[in-house]
């Protein structure tokens, strides 16, 4: 009788807690859609290079399955369990980044950003680890600091803490985009933790002004042909990709061809021309342009809407999290996915200068999707603690 009552109570208890099926569904949809698009974008090149049209699809599928298992695992562990690993995680991510310089490091596409995990045959990007660990560390830090986070001192600490990792990622792996993402996540988390707006508005305006001045200086340096010219090519290619069509603007212009030729309705799934070796990284950073080419403006809208819905779900979870730690975790993950998807689409549409950023859940890339799914696991875990009556 007693056990019956307990199980009954547990059942009642479970039904009173929340499981965000919408979030799960959106993530699964994006993953499935991503797999289809990876196959479409990569099959031609894969069959030429590896005699196996599904080469990239299979590798991605394995990563997705591992990722899903990890997600379920993480989702079922109370998220406070991870609190104790925050400092360790920070140290580990600090330690992992320099490993790319050791023989364990793997070079690909002219950049040394991966490390080989012995025995597993998997390549890991330390920047992905750093993103996850930074979210965890800052969430713990915000809780530990309590009200002192509202002081200027607290604010400065919060801004300085992620800096070593950001600089490491930028200086050691020459990975500007990951550094920006980690910095962005941190700023968003600090923004939520602090009640102040003024500081952030000043920071935002200052940042925009700095970028504008930098662009102006670079462009005038380029036209006068000075020393800076070499580094500024990427900026010039952004402003006028057609003038640099064979150089830095090549990938951008090919992406624009894909988007433009897709038009409103697209050419139909599998009908992309640009994926026939014209567009470099078609299945990776540039997959969004293939989506536009094949599925048109409407395919692109569907994806953008899915991302907005994903952010909305995470906002709801963050707002209803049982404690600040959970909320901050979700804000971090939300910031990560938001920044990465915005930057990716902005790069593909040549809204910002070209830099290598993958589209969350959709782009090809094993370690990226695995860590994203772990993060989703964390969000789901936070969601599970929400009592329905609190909603």
């Amino acid at each position: 009788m007693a056990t019956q009552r307990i199980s009954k109570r547990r059942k009642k208890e479970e039904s009173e807690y929340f499981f965000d099926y919408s979030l799960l569904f959106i993530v699964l949809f994006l993953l499935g859609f991503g797999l289809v698009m990876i196959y479409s974008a990569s099959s031609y090149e894969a069959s030429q290079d590896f005699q196996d049209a599904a080469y990239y699809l299979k590798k991605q599928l394995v990563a997705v399955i591992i990722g899903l298992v990890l997600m379920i695992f993480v989702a079922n562990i109370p998220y406070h369990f991870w609190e104790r690993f925050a400092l360790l995680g920070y140290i580990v991510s600090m330690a992992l980044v320099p490993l790319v310089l050791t023989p364990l490091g793997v070079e690909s596409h002219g950049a040394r950003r991966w490390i080989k995990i012995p025995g597993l045959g998997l390549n890991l990007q330390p920047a992905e680890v750093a993103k996850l660990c930074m979210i965890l560390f800052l969430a713990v830090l915000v809780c530990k600091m309590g009200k002192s986070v509202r002081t200027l001192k607290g604010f400065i600490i919060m801004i300085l803490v992620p800096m070593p990792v950001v600089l490491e990622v930028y200086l050691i792996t020459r990975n500007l985009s990951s550094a920006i993402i980690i910095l962005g996540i941190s700023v968003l988390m600090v923004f939520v933790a602090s009640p102040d707006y003024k500081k952030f508005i000043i920071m935002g305006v200052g940042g925009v002004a700095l970028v504008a001045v930098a662009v102006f200086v670079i462009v005038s340096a380029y036209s006068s042909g000075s020393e800076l010219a070499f580094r500024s090519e990427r900026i010039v290619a952004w402003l006028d990709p057609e003038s640099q069509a064979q150089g830095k603007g090549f990938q951008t212009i090919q992406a624009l061809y894909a988007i433009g030729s897709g038009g409103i309705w697209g050419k139909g799934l599998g009908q992309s021309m640009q994926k026939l070796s014209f567009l470099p990284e078609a299945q990776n950073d540039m997959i969004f342009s293939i989506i536009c080419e094949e599925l048109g403006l409407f395919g692109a809208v569907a994806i953008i809407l899915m991302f907005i819905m994903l952010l909305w779900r995470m906002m709801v979870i963050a707002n209803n999290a049982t404690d600040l730690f959970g909320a901050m975790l979700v804000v971090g993950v939300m910031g990560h996915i938001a920044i990465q998807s915005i930057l990716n689409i902005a790069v593909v549409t040549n809204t910002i200068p070209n830099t290598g950023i993958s589209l969350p859940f959709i782009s090809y890339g094993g370690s990226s999707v695995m860590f994203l799914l772990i993060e989703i696991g964390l969000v789901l875990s936070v969601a599970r603690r929400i009592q329905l009556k609190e909603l």
Partner: protein
Amino acid sequence: MLTDNNKIFHRKKILVIFFLCAGILVLLFGRLIYLCVWRSEHYSRLATELHERERSIKAARGRILDQNGAVLADNKTVCTVSVVHNQIEEPEKVIEILCKELELSEEYVKQRVEKYSSMERIRSNVEKEVGDRIREYDLAGVKVDEDYKRYYPYGELASKVLGFTGGDNQGIIGLEVIYEEYLQGKPGTILTITDAKGIEVEAAGERRIEPVNGSDLCISMDMNIQSYATQLAIQARAAKQADSVSILVMNPKNGELYAMVNVPEFDLNDPYRLPEGTDEAALTAQQKQDLLNTTWRNGCINDTYEPGSTFKIITAAAGLEEKVITTASTFSCPGFIVVDDRKIRCHKIAGHGTQDFTHCMMNSCNPALITVGLRLGLDKYYQYFERFGLKTKTGIDLPGEAGTIMHRKDDMGNVELATVAFGQSFQITPIQLITTASSIINGGNRITPHFGVKTLDADGNVLETFSYPVTQNVVSEETSATMREILEMVVAEGSGKNGGIAGFRIGGKTATSQTLPRGSGRYIASFIGFAPADDPQVIALAIINNPQGTYYGGQVAAPVIRQLFENILPYLGIVEYNQ
């Protein structure tokens, strides 16, 4: 707890983040609309240009037809054999078959088959039968494209006039160059969709832009007259072992050229073959090219010579027009004339005695014509020289016409005037001479010699008829009539009687000019004749360059024109009259 009142700002801030991100995503969506809707056409066009590979389809070059419609320049279908590296399945077999069929060395074919390129041409201008045979093997990666090659049915006929075309079917010399824009047409293209490496995407199919064929060019040449004139020229060259023989036949009324012969001609279907007996191995590439250029040279328009006595026509016409002489004017020829301090001899050393001007022309008397020139005076003479158009080019529709080489007026004294008056010490082209003579006998209209008459489309409809400038009244009709009479007398009873045909009224003038340097024993014998003398419908000029043995124009060149007229006058419908 986030639900605590003092933590409510967290909720607000999270909301701010959400709307910020969603807002940016919406802006990006706006950017996408701009790219997908407004810029779509621009990028689609650029992308299509990138994806399509062109193979051009040659346009058939327009034919060249003579005035009766005989085809002088035609096209024949040939094939271009190429290989597409990525599509080859059995390289050994491909190499073997192509070596055998195209008669190429294995090394050459192998190199091309194994070269990694989107498309490699193995051989062009392959006979159609060979191309068809290769196609029947049905080898993967071997492409046989049909193509046109210029073909000249009459081989050497009028080679220096028609000209020939190069590897891209472009005109190299002759009419083929001048009428290039009409003949060439517009090449079409086959557009195939390929990937970035140039491999065709089979499912995508291909797009064709059909070529526009060139227009046919109808020229005034008469194939029969040209052939006959060529035969005569070959005979004369052989008989007199001459360096070269040129014959021009023209309609003096409108400048239409019926024939232009320059023997030796060359084979238009094999223009790069050097003349027989040339030691090819001993020549440098430059020497070879120079030799070919000499072979292709059209003596009638590219080279100048001293016209000699035929030029007396011009001096006489100027004298009559200026009325410094009449046909009745008498001249006394002691066998020479003293001009300033120079004694200039007549060709008849004993002299012609006293004679009227008609007889002076019949005897081709140098002192008499010098006297005419001196009576005109330098200013007048030079003025007529220019008025007759001798200082300008004739404007013939063939490339490379040479200009007149004449004294500057300031440098001329009486001696120079005297020599010019009987056709020496300056040079003109044969086409210049026949054109000027035509304008003197046709009533005074300087016509433009030409071949091009009209262009036709494939169905024979006239697309464009060419017109040529005419300068009227370079001499009066009266002077013209007098000149016709004088020149008829030259043939009837004078030095040109070898050019006469019983029953036809023919006018003409002979010339024997010594080439520079004087005393080299090299002569140019020539005769200019026209018929009927009272109403000229055809004029012909024969020039025999460096004849051996007898070299007098009246004995060497006049018979050539006589034989020509004997045949072509009835052919042209110029019937005999009863004397």
